[in-house]
């Protein structure tokens, strides 16, 4: 095994050649630590690390850094998300150092949904740098031990650097190149947007493999189990960059309402099975949105338990 960049659990699992299984958890709309810690319990031991979202969909919540630190305290490994919407480069570098000091070893670099989607649409959007540059900045801080201005960092943050990729956004032909660019900038791993259109994703991955990108970076396929047909319809209509085939909605509608959740989980499990075999896919990022308590069952049925423990 080549030398580890961060020594995070996720990095170790991936470097050892295991199929990774990561989870997600949104911090509370408040300071309700108890509820957050309860959500952690469903994830503990069932995933390799847990994404802590950063004011997702531009709705204000407890900070992702605080959420990540609480996770560390509870013995789980966070993947600290950071968006470019809410902080300038000063705040970003300082939060990266802060998160590292609090025990965070993975981070996910994102642009962030536009604030018009959220609950403070009047907010100023910062975008001092973009997600590509955020990746490059974290890499510089880690590998060169320097701030953006080239001043030395006293104990650099050794982060395992993650980035997002949405194969379903346009223009489609450009998406593999944008992914290549993120890898070039320094992304160690990628978590894709939720995948529902498997046909398109297969095509995307074949392009990615042709370009050899999967050999330079670990690609984790994003999966979100649908709770019902209503959720699928909503996401199709209102969540930007989502590609939800009518077929899937039809399939969910094809069963009784009370069985739709099970049908959604079945589809997700079929996806995981396919991803295990798909060339270039190194793991699955399971985004069970506000459905953390289902993760143990999903992980069990997906056959990804027990999670590897690597010293």
């Amino acid at each position, binding site marked *: 095994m080549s030398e580890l960049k961060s020594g995070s659990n996720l990095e170790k699992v991936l470097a050892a050649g295991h199929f990774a299984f990561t989870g997600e958890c949104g911090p509370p709309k408040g300071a309700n630590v108890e509820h957050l810690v309860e959500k952690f319990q469903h994830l503990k031991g069932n995933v390799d690390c847990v994404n802590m979202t950063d004011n997702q969909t531009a709705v204000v919540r407890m900070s992702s850094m605080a959420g990540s630190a609480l996770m560390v305290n509870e013995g789980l490994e966070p993947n600290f998300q950071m968006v*470019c*919407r809410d902080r300038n*480069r000063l705040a970003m570098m300082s939060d990266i150092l802060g998160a590292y000091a609090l025990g965070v070893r993975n981070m996910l670099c994102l*642009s*962030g*949904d*536009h604030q*018009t*989607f959220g609950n403070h649409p009047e907010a100023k*959007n910062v*975008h*001092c*740098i*973009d*997600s*590509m*540059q955020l990746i*490059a*900045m974290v890499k510089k801080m880690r590998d060169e031990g320097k701030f*953006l201005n080239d001043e030395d960092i006293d104990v650099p943050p050794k982060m395992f650097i993650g980035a*997002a*990729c*949405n194969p379903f*956004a*346009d*223009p489609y*032909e*450009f998406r593999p*190149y*944008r992914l*290549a*660019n993120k890898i*070039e*900038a320094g992304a160690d791993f990628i978590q894709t*947007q939720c995948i529902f259109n498997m046909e398109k994703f297969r095509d995307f991955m074949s392009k990615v493999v042709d370009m050899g990108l999967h050999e330079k970076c670990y690609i984790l396929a994003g999966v979100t189990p649908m709770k019902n047909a209503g959720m699928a319809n909503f996401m199709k209509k209102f969540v*930007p*960059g989502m590609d939800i085939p009518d077929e899937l909605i039809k399939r969910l509608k094809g069963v009784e309402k009370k069985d739709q959740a099970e049908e959604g989980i079945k589809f997700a499990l079929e996806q995981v099975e396919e991803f295990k075999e798909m060339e270039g896919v190194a793991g699955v990022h399971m985004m069970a949105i506000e459905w953390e308590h289902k993760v143990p069952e999903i992980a069990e049925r997906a056959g990804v338990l027990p999670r590897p423990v690597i010293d």
Partner: protein
Amino acid sequence: MIVADRKPIEELLGMVEDCKKILVVGCKGCVTVCNVGGLKEVEVLAATMKIARKKAGNPLEIAEHVLERQCDREYVSQLGEEVNDYDAVLSMACGVGPQFLSEMYKEQSFFPAVNTTFFGGATQHGVWEERCAGCGTCGIHMFGGLCPIARCAKSLLHGPCGGSSNGICEVNKETECIWDSIVKKKMEAGQLEDLLGVKNFKSWKTARDGGPRRSIREELVQGNI
């Protein structure tokens, strides 16, 4: 040019609620071109306000004046001390106008009659669109001549983001994703490599973030030209 929209009439009436006699000052610059603060608009606004106040049983006397430009002291000085004969003055110029007026006539209160929105141009009759955010370091040649600072909702230098769909920006269905156009243009021209690699971190020092800006043309200051 600078583009603006007229403020709603209720807001303007509210500004001069306590006045009996006001002056409305238009400008023959950008706001004339974008049909918001020139001679015609001054006349329409004055007439509308007079009617509204008359209806309310509280008539308002309104004088009208249109300056060559309100962003030039030479023209602003033409108003003269008569501006003090009014209870208030409404400026129909962009945000620069009422400031130049306030700076010259310190005793008078000047109200902005328009909301200044952006630097742009007309894309069709009656429609203006933003093109530049005045960042102070123009780099549009790197993006096929299209500005992502002003025209991408996230000012991305490496777009398009994951919300781009069919050429439309995630922000709303009426907004084009400029990154879609940039990428397509570069792909068609076989210049995709221009978009790869990490672009230099933008310095916002030259933008408004660096504090109020100033342009000095030495040769003009010294009177050589």
